């Protein structure tokens, strides 16, 4: 949830590098509208053994009909040099709202997933991914 002055308060997760950059990005997308929670299931590892290819997947409960569907989903990482990871545009033709890809994480950080509905409302979920960088073995 966004605090009054636009400072990011990601409920229940520790503050990592650039909360302000994520807040600004979210504000740009939502126009300052309030963001709800729920209906977004995140599939992220708790600990990623290497930050080069971390699985990121989500599934959003939505009927995906012409009058009730998820229009877009934005994935952000608050500890990377820039917060945007990827965004996805969905259509009712898909029948379900989910996607899976792999991202680069520079270090332990929060992943924030923001979903925009066709009616202009927004939902959000986040989770922390710990990233270890072993460095051994050449």
């Amino acid at each position, binding site marked *: 949830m966004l605090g009054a002055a636009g400072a990011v308060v990601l409920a229940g997760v520790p503050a990592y590098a650039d909360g302000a950059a994520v807040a600004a990005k979210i504000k740009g997308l939502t126009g300052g509208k309030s963001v709800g929670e729920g209906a977004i299931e995140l599939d992220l590892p708790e600990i990623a053994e290497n930050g*080069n*290819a*971390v699985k990121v*997947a989500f599934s959003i409960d939505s009927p*995906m009909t012409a009058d009730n569907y998820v229009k877009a989903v934005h994935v952000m*990482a608050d500890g*990377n*040099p*820039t917060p*945007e*990871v*990827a*965004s*996805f*545009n*969905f*259509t009712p*033709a*898909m*029948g*379900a*709202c*989910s*996607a*899976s*890809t*792999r*991202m*680069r*994480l520079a270090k332990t950080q929060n992943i924030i997933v923001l979903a925009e509905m066709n009616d202009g409302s927004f939902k959000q979920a986040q989770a922390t991914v710990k990233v270890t960088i072993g460095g051994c073995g050449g």
Partner: protein
Amino acid sequence: MAKIKPRVKVPKKAAAGEIVEIKALISHPMHTGRAKDKKGNKIPRKIINKFVASFDGQDVFTANFEPAVSANPYIAFPFKANKSGAFTFTWVEDGGAEFTASKKMTVA
């Protein structure tokens, strides 16, 4: 220089109304623009920045990739099989180069 090759996994057959999973991958280094080469010079950014899946000519799913997407970008997404048709998958690279793949799907 490795070839940039797409590959896709689409079920050949599906039942009407079934939600199938489509997987797509393209071999690409996804240079972020931050890494340096052996001489210490920055390797310029060059990534696949967009992936579009269209069915019978209609765009059904788009993914916009940033440099934070891993090398050899992989994407999996659902699609509701209503009628038989053909998919076209397009990957767009920084600078405009496009790579495509096509697959047909039969719906019973």
